[in-house]
């Protein structure tokens, strides 16, 4: 059981780590100062949550690996994040669309996790949900403002939605780990989260005058680690460079 719990916790922590790192790539070059600060703050919340999830993962694994060890010393095939969060930033609208899709999934997932039979998981979810509620409100209002904005901003948001929608399905696709977690009462079966996600994202997209593609095709392979997109490895070369070049560096 602890092996499955470790896998599950890596999925949680890798989602927040990879997305947090992606957002931090905007630091110093977002379109306006307020947005730059907002993206950096959301990144900070996500990295903070990563410390909690991966810290617990290391504890459950029992091999003495810390959150930092897991974040900085695993290679791409050991990452368990959703493909959506590793997608490159693209333009600002693209980043906000990715954020909005993830935030509403994340919020739905954390709501269920506050009821986890594992108290440690429930406590991290209770802590994270306050921050993620704020993220979800902001990404929704920005997606609406840009989608229902100028012809240019609308076109860019529609193109972002069309590009990213095929990565939504993976969030809700259960595998053996999810089934084991659900049976133990540790985490919800992700398939059960789809209705709540649809109920949240549907009205946002409608108000933003955006239309998701009809094709139900979904890319998968991120959370199982079977097949990440090429982008994750490129991201890790930057993110992990210092710890790999100077192992154990302190300052």
């Amino acid at each position, binding site marked *: 059981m602890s092996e499955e719990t470790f896998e599950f916790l890596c999925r949680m922590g890798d989602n927040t780590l990879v997305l947090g790192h992606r957002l931090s790539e905007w630091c110093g070059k977002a379109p306006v100062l307020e947005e730059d600060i907002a993206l950096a703050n959301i990144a900070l919340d996500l990295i903070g949550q990563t410390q909690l999830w991966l810290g617990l993962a290391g504890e459950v694994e029992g091999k003495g690996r810390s959150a930092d060890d897991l974040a900085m010393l695993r290679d791409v095939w050991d990452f368990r994040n959703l493909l959506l969060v590793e997608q490159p930033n693209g333009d600002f609208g693209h980043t906000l669309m990715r954020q909005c899709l993830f935030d509403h999934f994340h919020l739905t997932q954390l709501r269920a996790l506050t009821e986890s039979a594992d108290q440690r998981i429930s406590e991290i979810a209770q802590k994270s949900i306050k*921050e993620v509620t704020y993220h979800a409100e902001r990404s929704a209002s920005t997606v609406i403002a840009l989608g229902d904005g100028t012809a240019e901003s609308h076109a860019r948001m529609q193109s972002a939605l069309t590009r990213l929608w095929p990565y939504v399905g993976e969030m809700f696709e259960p595998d053996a780990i999810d089934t084991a977690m659900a049976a133990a009462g540790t985490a919800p079966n992700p398939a059960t989260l789809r209705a709540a996600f649809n109920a949240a994202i549907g009205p946002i997209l409608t108000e933003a005058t955006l239309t998701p593609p009809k094709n139900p095709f979904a890319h998968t392979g991120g959370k199982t680690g079977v097949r990440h997109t090429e982008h994750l490895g490129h991201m890790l070369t930057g993110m992990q460079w210092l710890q790999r070049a100077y192992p154990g560096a302190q300052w």
Partner: protein
Amino acid sequence: MVEALSLNDVWAWLAEVPDPEIPAISLVDLGVIRSVRVENGTLIVTLTPTYSGCPATSVIQMEVERALTERGVPSFRIERQLAPPWTTDWISAEGREKLERYGIAPPRPAGGPSRCPLCHSDDVERVSQFGSTPCKAQWRCRTCLEPFDYFKCI
């Protein structure tokens, strides 16, 4: 001897430790010190983080360690508590007054500041949902035209 410590004294010492990012208020005002107790000859101070990624969290722990060391506490331990999660409701009434005097509008359940902390006008507008630290948002006053921080309500 830890047994001889008065817990009221410990609270009083911690009430003198300023928050590292908002030095106008103390750690006790901020509500991050959840309990102070003695167990088997060791003083245990329980801290809770404000935001999970707030860089001040580790500095707060160091400041508490320093305060206890300076007072000569021979044996102490700092524990982290996540649940129930920190809420701005735990900021003391005194802390709220100190925040406003310092130029930061205190948190309100209504989701925005009641007035400008500088000129007290209620004609204020939001500039950004985020600000200079994870716990704050950017607002501005339409009367005195000054920007100010608002402590987000969570």
